[in-house]
């Protein structure tokens, strides 16, 4: 478990973080979300024992970061924004060095190496100098060095930064795999990116915690979900648009049904609601013997929740 209490960091006279308090349970994947300068990197560097807080306490796995930094470091894998790579070393040699420097024996490193190369999909380049690899591969090597010692806690600062769409999908899959074995903390300023991989979000703005919770909890906290996207397929009959619209209009709480677009083999409607009526919508669609393909609150709504949180913090300053 990670427990931070009144964590504060000043750079000179300027407050970069805090005071913030939060708790992260073992096995959770938590996203640190915020705009540039929100304090995400500062918070993660403190957790990784790379930065000393100006005030407050932080415990990782029951150990105080300041009192027992080396013990904490053994339990943490850290990928900073700029991966800490030695460009002259081969991938295999580098991972061996990263493992040994974190206290693993040569035998343990050798035993673990195969798994890490497989997890990060680096086997084909294990003998290549890191300097010759593409940005995506370098980022993977950065993740590999963070997990080589099989740490309990994994801290990834902007792991998808600078990656192209294909590489982002690959990195997302990699993080999904890592979630199974590690408590993962990820930072990002891209809401949609982080919300896909994390169980819980911690929204930061101007060094303060603006909100904590799941996507839904955050949205409900700030304003009830007022926009839902529903994708429906009509098995038969004429004028499917009218059929679906009639069903949706009849749901209690729906105030407006937008024009549909064809998506995922069905028709996708954005509906405005006065309350969270996703359950009612799904029930109505199924009862009308229509195929419910997808139901979600609008991504745009989530973005606006994030913006409201951030703008709220600006307003308060």
């Amino acid at each position, binding site marked *: 478990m990670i427990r931070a209490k009144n964590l504060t960091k000043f750079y000179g006279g300027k407050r970069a973080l805090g005071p913030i308090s939060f708790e992260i349970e073992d096995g959770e994947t938590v996203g640190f979300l915020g705009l540039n300068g929100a304090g995400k990197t500062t918070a993660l560097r403190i957790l*990784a*024992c*790379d*930065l*000393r807080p100006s005030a407050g306490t932080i415990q990782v796995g029951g150990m105080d970061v300041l009192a027992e*930094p*080396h*013990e904490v*470091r*053994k339990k*943490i894998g*850290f990928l*900073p924004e*700029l*991966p*800490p*790579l*030695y*460009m*002259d*070393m081969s991938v295999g*040699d580098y991972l061996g*060095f*990263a493992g*040994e*420097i*974190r*206290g693993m024996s040569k035998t343990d490193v050798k035993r673990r190496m195969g798994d890490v190369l497989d997890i990060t999909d680096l086997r084909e380049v294990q003998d290549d100098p890191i300097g010759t690899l593409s940005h995506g591969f370098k980022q993977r090597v950065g993740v590999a*060095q963070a997990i080589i010692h099989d740490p309990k806690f994994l801290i990834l600062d902007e792991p998808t930064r600078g990656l192209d769409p294909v590489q982002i999908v690959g990195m997302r899959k990699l993080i999904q795999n890592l979630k199974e074995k590690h408590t993962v903390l990820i930072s990002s300023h891209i809401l949609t990116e982080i919300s896909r991989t994390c169980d819980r979000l911690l929204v930061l703005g101007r060094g303060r915690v603006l909100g904590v919770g799941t996507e839904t909890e955050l949205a409900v906290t700030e304003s009830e979900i007022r926009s839902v996207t529903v994708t429906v397929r009509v098995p038969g009959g004429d004028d499917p648009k009218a059929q679906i619209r009639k069903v949706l209009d009849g749901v209690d709480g729906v105030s407006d049904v937008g024009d549909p677009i064809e998506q995922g083999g069905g028709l996708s409607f954005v509906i405005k609601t006065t309350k969270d009526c996703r359950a009612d919508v799904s029930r109505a669609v199924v009862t009308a013997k229509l195929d419910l393909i997808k139901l979600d609150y609008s991504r745009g709504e989530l973005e606006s929740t994030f913006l409201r949180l951030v703008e709220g913090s600006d307003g308060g300053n």
Partner: protein
Amino acid sequence: MAATSIIYRREIGAYLRSPFAWVIAALVLLVNGVVFRGYVLPGQHLSALVLERFFWASSGVVMFAGVLLSFRLISEERASGSMVLLNTSPVRDSQIVVGKFFAALTFLAILLALTIYMPLLIKVRGKITSGQILVGYVGLLLLGSAILSIGIFASSLVKNQLLAAIIATVIVVLLVFLFQFAKTLDGTAKSVLQDLDLWWIHFQNGFMRGVLNLKDLIYYVAVIYFFLLLSVKTLEAKRWQ
């Protein structure tokens, strides 16, 4: 100790993989050879004097190589971001500094070992002892170690490698010319500054002539310890920042 050894092995590997290190090695051997042929050998001299001239010339090359081999050791890690790996690993700053220092010293020692044919040539043709050669090389190694420790200290101060090289060079030049500066002074200040001189007093008057003085030995060990300690303290101060 384990972490020191791991860092030592990585740095040795880095030297062997680095074209820059091989260029330095080639330059050292080339300059040493050219100076040996063009300055040390010509003329009719006692073989002991020829050996002195060899160590005099070699000491200049060692100082030059010492700065070049050390200025990047920490600053490069900071600039490239790889320092974060060390900073977030269970490694003490002293282990980082000592591992890097001994790696640089090993590379320098290999370079010096490759110059051994020159004093051996003098020995074959003249009347010098193996002891004189050995003492001279011990002096070169100690002088080189002192320069390396200064270079590592400069490297620990700044992220910019060029700036680190400049700082190291300035410190070395100041310490080398302390003796000349001391000449303009009188009394205790003069004697203190002369005793702190890196080259004229402790190398030229002792090791270069095949004379092993305990005070010279202690002086170099003290300089090495002092600058390595400063490097460790600098890293400690910067580690959590």
